[in-house]
């Protein structure tokens, strides 16, 4: 620990940390654009200027090592004036388009312009005007707004590990550009890694924007709750952005130093368009009916089946998994042959614990570890899945074929950004499970617990609507074995239940009527 003086007040700070971070821990916020705790220091923006006693010129706080007994003037008259000057330079080419900018409300430049800047500008010449470009599958760049803080370039190089953003030209003409790596065989037109949302997030101005959420809302309309991302078994802590009972995106947690600064696009946009096309009724062979028809029919099918194949459960919370396991044990006790599988799609086959990238786990089912502990087996390939389906008298699919999870299964880290939020309903038809059920002509013996209305619900013998992850709170066990809780961030649809609750109700369901036989 080192003792430093800021404007005459003594602080005891951690000298191993960067000065900005160390002072932030003590509640002193030095303004900064280009500095980021997880990225290297460049000192591009100059807004963090401070005056150090004994040093003739102003120094950038991000680039100043902490020394014991250092006396800093951080908010004096002289230094505030200097920051005003820096602010004026930064705003020279920045257009006054906060009303149309998606970043407005979470924009550092906007905040500092209010707190540190001038009301007026002395700049009379024409501002530079470079047209907006699409540089990523889900990323736009507005060069006019860019203040060249170099954060995006550093993030791509140091965190993601790709060398595809670069600063081009010099002086007033400098722009950030996408430069596809030369070594790869075919040049890609767009940046396509899994952290385009994080790029837009760390951009301190509105230069990098996600196309996915472009112009759909203003940030101050979002209601935020703490939760955990449901996208994979990493289960990152996140803040939700909800408007009109629709989930728009996840944002990194409120306390990034403890819970991580970045989340991947895969999780970030996983709840997008979730509220559309929900399955709100029970269905029998695609026709709309009621629970009074479907549940007894299912109970009857279970009673008459000799071998049952249960697929899924990895998307459900621990309580639901417990309930599924209990039901399976009951069926086994009744002398039935029950097999419980999960992760039944090619992208998920035998991925185990490996990672797509530094955050996204190979295990795209959030509760996979808990399921494995409960005795569920993982299928290793497509043929195994098909033979399992052929041998079973009854196939119970829980969540595995509902559109958002199916989309999760289908998307790879390379193409997900392109798919994210769009056409998730079509994703169901591309899954291995859908293909297997189709080719084995097994729809007639399939009971489907699902969340969205899609082609699978039209085909399955019985379709049972259930609550989905944003609508209910639950415990999950991540890949390291830590228990994490997700919150109910959307108002649940009245009358829908979680698969666990439905299975409980199934036990008390009346004996089947004459019409509902397999």
């Amino acid at each position: 620990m080192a003792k430093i003086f800021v404007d005459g007040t003594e602080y005891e700070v951690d000298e191993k940390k960067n000065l900005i971070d160390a002072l932030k821990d003590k509640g002193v916020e030095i303004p900064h654009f280009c500095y980021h705790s997880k990225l290297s220091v460049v000192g591009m923006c100059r807004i963090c200027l401070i005056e150090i006693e004994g040093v003739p010129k102003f120094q950038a706080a991000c680039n100043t090592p902490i020394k014991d007994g250092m006396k800093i003037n951080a908010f004096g008259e002289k230094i505030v004036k200097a920051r005003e000057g820096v602010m004026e330079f930064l705003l020279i080419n920045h257009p006054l388009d906060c009303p149309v900018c998606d970043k407005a409300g979470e924009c550092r430049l906007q905040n500092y312009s209010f707190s540190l800047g001038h009301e007026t500008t002395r700049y009379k010449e024409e501002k530079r005007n470079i047209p907006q470009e699409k540089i990523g599958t889900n990323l736009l760049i507005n060069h006019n707004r860019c203040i060249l803080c170099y954060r995006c370039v550093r993030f791509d190089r140091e965190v993601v590990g790709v060398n595809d953003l670069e600063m081009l030209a010099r002086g007033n003409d400098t722009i950030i550009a996408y430069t596809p790596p030369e070594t790869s065989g075919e040049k890609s037109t767009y940046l396509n890694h899994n952290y385009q949302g994080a790029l837009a997030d760390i951009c301190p101005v509105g230069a990098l924007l996600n196309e996915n959420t472009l112009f759909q809302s203003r940030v101050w309309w979002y209601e935020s709750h703490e939760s955990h991302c449901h996208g994979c078994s990493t289960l990152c802590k996140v803040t939700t952005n909800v408007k009109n009972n629709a989930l728009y995106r996840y944002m990194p947690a409120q306390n990034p130093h403890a819970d991580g600064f970045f989340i991947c696009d895969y999780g970030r946009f996983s709840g997008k368009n979730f509220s559309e096309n929900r399955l709100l009724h029970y269905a029998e062979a695609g026709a709309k009916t009621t629970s009074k028809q479907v549940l007894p029919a299912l109970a009857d099918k279970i009673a008459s089946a000799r071998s049952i194949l249960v697929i899924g459960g990895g998307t459900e919370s621990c309580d639901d998994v417990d309930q599924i396991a209990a039901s399976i044990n009951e069926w086994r006790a009744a002398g039935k042959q029950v097999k419980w599988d999960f992760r039944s799609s090619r992208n998920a086959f035998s991925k185990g614990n490996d990672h797509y990238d530094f955050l996204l786990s190979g295990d795209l089912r959030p509760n996979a570890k808990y399921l494995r502990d409960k005795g569920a087996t993982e299928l290793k390939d497509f043929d195994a899945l098909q033979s399992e389906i052929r041998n079973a008298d009854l196939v119970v699919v829980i969540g595995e074929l509902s559109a958002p999870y199916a989309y999760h299964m289908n998307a790879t880290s390379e193409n997900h950004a392109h798919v994210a939020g769009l056409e998730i309903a079509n994703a169901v038809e591309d899954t291995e499970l859908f293909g297997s059920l189709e080719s084995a002509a097994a729809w007639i013996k399939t009971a489907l617990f699902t969340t969205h209305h899609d082609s699978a619900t039209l085909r399955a013998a019985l379709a049972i609507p259930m609550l989905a992850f944003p609508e209910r709170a639950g415990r999950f066990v991540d890949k390291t074995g830590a228990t994490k809780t997700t919150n109910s961030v959307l108002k649940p649809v009245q009358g829908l239940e979680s698969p666990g609750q439905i299975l409980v109700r199934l036990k008390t369901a009346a004996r089947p009527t004459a019409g509902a036989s397999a």
Partner: protein
Amino acid sequence: MATIQVHKKYAFKWYEKFYFMSISAGMWVTLKHFVKSAFLRRMVTVSYPEKKMPLSSRFRGLHRLKRNEKGQERCTACYCCQWVCPADAIQIVAAEVTPERQYLHPEDKYAKSFQVDLLRCIYCGLCEEACPKGAIYLDGGMPMPADSRDGLILDKAKMMETEGGAILGERN
């Protein structure tokens, strides 16, 4: 505590029971207006909608969306009016300006749909004040009657509709 009787039924005098005074006082007003309008040509009503009363320059009526000097839409779908509207009458859907329609818009965001629900609107004029672009003004005159609820939802086409060309600049 003693109760004080505040209300007491008024007892009519014998001549008041004929209501003669009250009726003649009322008829005098009627007669006055009859003489004014029939003989002195000082009409107190106009035959709407053929004739219209002149409105104050500050009158807040139907909403209109304005264009700038180049004839481009001023509205950039910033949602300020929707945000400030106390009656939740405004619904905007924003979209990105594509190069084909760039000539219609000064910025890169525009209102794909802009609806004002006149059944909800309370004509408070806060949207006028909130607009950073001077795009919306409540200077469209008296609200028009409609025969359905849909008819009372102003859309962009109706609000941009002008008599004799684009509406420019300030409130007219």
